[in-house]
């Protein structure tokens, strides 16, 4: 594979190769897509016990300085000055039209220090956007090189305690620094309880291997990461979110504090208030294909009369729910649960029902 020469390589690549991973390019990285158990078993193992993911392709930004809260409150619809120490928030960078530049987790570690977790494919754009808006402020921005692991599933808390990280006081959507250079949040993107652990590269191999040796743990590749997040009804940037899509249409208004819904200091505030006022024209909905055939991203949707009504933005098979699952955007009038739609799959219409998200009962709290 000659194209792989230009891909970023994970610091723990050799460890994944020894674990039998199959690799494929994703967002400029050579990523483990699956391991010997295969996508179905990996997915189910994560929901039954615990899955370990290498998410080092995602980017950490540390924003510090006297104006840190002010910068965050400009970039994101967050009450950053009031954000509790240790609190993690799911949020986004918005442009003036309220289009989503990226979706993020922002954790406040100290009065003047925040950590942002950004998507791999958007990291360069994010960093430029953040730095541009930091001009003239008392701000220091760092992008520390870390190995970044996620441990997800009902056994995750017990396993991480066994690994000598005390998370007993850590509630969902909060984070702390257990050791110098380490950053742990109780969060994740599977719908399960779990943790994301950033740690220095020279410590990572031993730590990851000690977790992977635990019989409750399996390595999980990107393919099962995708089916897990899809069952949990979570957005994938580039599929379900982009710069043309606002968070209200995306059904993410819950992530915007009530006090900021009528305006605020953040970029895109005015447009957000307008969209809330008028109601979004399109809405992201869950879609359940009838039958067994997966309906994937890009499939065009029509109503019962054959009129175009939107498109599928994420779709595949849900191993835990044992049927195909999808999400997409439809006109607001068609967003009611149980609305009958059709997807075009290779020229054949496949019946779809609008359903409430998520497809599974989440064991994590709402982020």
């Amino acid at each position, binding site marked *: 594979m000659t194209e792989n020469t230009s891909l970023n390589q994970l610091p723990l690549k050799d460890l994944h190769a020894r674990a039998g991973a199959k690799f494929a390019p994703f967002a400029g990285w050579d990523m483990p*897509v*699956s391991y010997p158990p*295969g*996508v*179905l*078993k990996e*997915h189910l193992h994560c929901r039954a016990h615990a899955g370990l993911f290498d998410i080092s392709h995602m980017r950490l930004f540390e924003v510090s300085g006297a104006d840190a809260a002010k910068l965050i409150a400009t970039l994101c619809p967050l009450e950053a000055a009031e954000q509790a120490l240790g609190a993690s928030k799911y949020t986004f960078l918005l442009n003036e039209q309220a289009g989503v530049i990226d979706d993020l987790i922002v954790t406040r570690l100290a009065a003047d220090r925040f950590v942002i977790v950004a998507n791999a494919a958007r990291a360069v754009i994010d960093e430029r956007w953040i730095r541009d808006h930091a001009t003239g402020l008392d701000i220091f921005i760092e992008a520390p090189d870390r190995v970044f692991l996620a441990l997800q599933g009902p056994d995750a808390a017990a396993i991480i305690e066994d690994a000598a990280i005390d998370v007993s006081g850590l509630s969902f959507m909060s984070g702390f620094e257990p050791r110098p250079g380490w950053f742990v949040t109780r969060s994740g993107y599977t719908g399960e309880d779990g943790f994301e652990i950033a740690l220095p590269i020279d410590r990572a191999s031993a730590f990851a291997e000690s977790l992977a040796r635990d019989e409750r743990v399996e390595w999980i590749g990107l*393919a*099962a990461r*995708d*089916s897990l997040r899809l069952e949990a009804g979570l957005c994938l940037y580039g599929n379900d979110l982009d710069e043309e899509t606002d968070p209200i249409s995306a059904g993410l208004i819950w992530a915007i504090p009530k006090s900021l819904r009528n305006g605020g200091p953040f970029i895109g505030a005015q447009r957000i208030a307008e969209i809330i006022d008028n109601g979004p024209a399109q809405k992201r909905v869950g879609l359940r294909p009838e039958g*067994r*055939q*997966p309906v*994937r991203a890009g499939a065009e949707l029509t109503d019962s009369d054959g009129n175009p009504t939107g498109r599928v933005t994420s779709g*595949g*098979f849900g*191993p835990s729910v044992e049927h*195909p699952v999808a999400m997409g955007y439809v006109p607001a009038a068609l967003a009611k649960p149980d609305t009958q739609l059709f997807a075009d799959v*290779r020229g054949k219409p496949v019946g779809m029902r609008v359903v409430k998200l998520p497809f599974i009962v989440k064991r994590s709290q709402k982020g």
Partner: protein
Amino acid sequence: MSALSTTYYTEDHEWIRVENGIATVGITEHAQEQLGDLVFVDLPSPGANVAKGDALVVVESVKAASDVYAPVDGEVKSVNDALSSEPGLVNSSAEGDGWLWTMSIADEGQLDGLMDADAYQKSIA
């Protein structure tokens, strides 16, 4: 009749077992390994006339959909209905119970360019 069969392989990782002028087609063990767990197999209708190279079957894993092509011209005679309830048969028995369809062979000359088992094994080594 003696059940003399010959098995051919394609560069697209399909196997074709020819017996009494009828071809049984499936994907190879190597192909199922690469695809991973299948969750759906979209089969054609018996009676369909197909040309070599037509995308005839779609095998869907959790992650992606992949085409399986008609290896020769001919008519679809039967499909493996067991796959509609148990697509995983392709994973557990790619070159046996996980067969996809049978078809007539309009021109046996089209088989000449295909690989035998040894050549195929070398091609994936």
